[in-house]
């Protein structure tokens, strides 16, 4: 080894260069481009001109259509996150604490949905809740109803679809933090006179909060950025902010407006990520892979 290597070790940077170059070229630079492009002028379908003007931003701030979409998106994300936390915490607790011999099976089943196509999982709800779905079939067979109940294409089905797809992220993250807790702590609290509920509330729950927070962040950000689920499971009024971006870019070919909306979504969800990383740190997120 020569002296130069001691002062500055080039090897890690060599190893990192392909990954860092691609991230910079394909993520960092494009992210700054959406800001630049938001000042461009849209002239016609797929035609725009470089400029520095604020008409796109003005439209965003003045048109209540966009505000409704932002409000709907935040509301939807909050609802899905809270429901996923409630639905997901208890199974995670069960998997972490059970003495069941085949716990690996429960864990495997938890990972499995990640491997099943997102679009198949989403459209599968049409088979459950749709007019020819399992529930309507069951109700008719039982003689409870004569004509199929219309349960599809509303906000509830969108929420169900989101939870179905994102719940494994929540359970996995909570499980990881529960699993890291010393198994003796709860019994110790019990011997000191705590009730089972108290022991859980004062020992286990606080120690599992980082995992719960990581799960919540993931579910919130993933929901907030979605547009495909409302297209498949929602009605015409169940659009989210992502749908406006999809419409602007794919249907209207209005790139400057698409860029403006994308940057807005980035700022909104980025703020949430920033707050999270400030208080909890991003490395909690990677623990689910260990």
């Amino acid at each position, binding site marked *: 080894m020569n002296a130069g290597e001691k002062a500055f070790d080039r090897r890690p940077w060599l190893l990192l260069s392909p990954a860092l170059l691609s991230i910079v070229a394909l993520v960092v630079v494009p992210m700054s481009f959406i800001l630049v492009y938001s000042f461009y002028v849209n002239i016609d379908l797929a035609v725009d001109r470089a400029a520095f003007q604020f008409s796109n931003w003005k439209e965003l701030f003045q048109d209540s259509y966009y505000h409704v979409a932002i409000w709907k998106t935040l509301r939807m994300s909050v609802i899905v996150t809270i429901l996923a936390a409630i639905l997901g915490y208890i199974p995670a607790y069960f998997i972490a604490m059970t003495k069941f011999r085949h716990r690996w099976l429960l864990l495997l089943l938890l990972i499995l949905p990640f491997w099943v196509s997102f679009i198949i999982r989403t459209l599968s709800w049409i088979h459950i809740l749709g007019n*020819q779905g399992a529930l309507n079939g069951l109700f008719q067979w039982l003689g409870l109803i004569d004509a199929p109940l219309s349960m599809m294409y509303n906000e509830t089905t969108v929420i169900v679809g989101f939870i179905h797809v994102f719940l494994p992220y929540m359970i996995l993250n909570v499980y990881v933090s529960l699993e890291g807790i010393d198994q003796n702590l709860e019994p110790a609290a019990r011997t000191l006179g705590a009730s089972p509920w108290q022991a859980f509330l004062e020992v286990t729950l606080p120690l599992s909060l980082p995992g719960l927070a990581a799960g919540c962040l993931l579910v919130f950000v993933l929901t907030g950025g979605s547009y495909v689920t409302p297209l498949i499971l929602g009605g015409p009024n169940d659009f989210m902010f992502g749908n406006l971006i999809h419409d602007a870019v794919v249907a209207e070919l209005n790139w400057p407006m698409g860029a403006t909306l994308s940057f807005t979504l*980035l700022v909104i969800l980025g703020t949430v990520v920033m707050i999270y990383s400030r208080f909890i740190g991003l490395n909690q997120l990677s623990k689910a892979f260990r």
Partner: protein
Amino acid sequence: MRAWRMIRFYTILVYIFMFAPIAVVLLLAFNSSQFGGFPIQGFSLRWFYRLAENEAIVRAFKTSLSLGVLTALVSTSIGVLASLALVRYKFRGKDLVTTLLISPVLVPETVLAVGLLIFLRWLHMPRSFLLLLLGHSIIALPFVVLVVQARLVGIKKEYEEAARSLGASPVQTFFAVTLPLLMPAVFAGALFAFTISFDNITATIFWRPTGMETVPTQIFGMLRNSVSPEINALGFVMIVITVGVPLLAGGLARYFSRKKT
């Protein structure tokens, strides 16, 4: 103990919630009815034959398969190198580098898709298969890095140091010692990347060139009317590929490693 039984019951319900819809798709794939939903009229394989005859679907399948394999190759190669740097070296700015490497997960996929698309437009490059490949690779990269990193932490540095002290060069050491030990994680990462690409629809809708369909976008296009029985059959095939193959690979790996010892 009553509380525990309730927790168990609740857990079972959540698992049913997660798997019942998927099971229904698998079941309906074999329904002979010409509608995609219930009731089930009889057992039939006709929708699978129909699937194999549908040229658009076969073409989408080929596109998705090659895209998935290439994505796995690209993201695993650059991901393994990056993980080596992160685990085996100390350097300034590591936290920033780690954040950058997982940034594709933190940026909403819709925004990532629009950003890359607009950047290419500025460069006057049309949408292409290459854009899909690069885009999918960047989406898969964080997951590859996380999986490989987790395994690499568990491989003792002493093995590599022993090889080095016996005169192997760093590159020799990597191929003779580190890589074989890392192989399970490399495979896991590659499979993960393949699945992420094979499954992706959010960004793919933005990036695909006009007329090119992947399996998810093809299904999405077919959905506009209603769920056809062909979609159920296609869902069955996709689930077999993305769930069956990894399970089989994992099972085989376990079987052979047990035989050896």
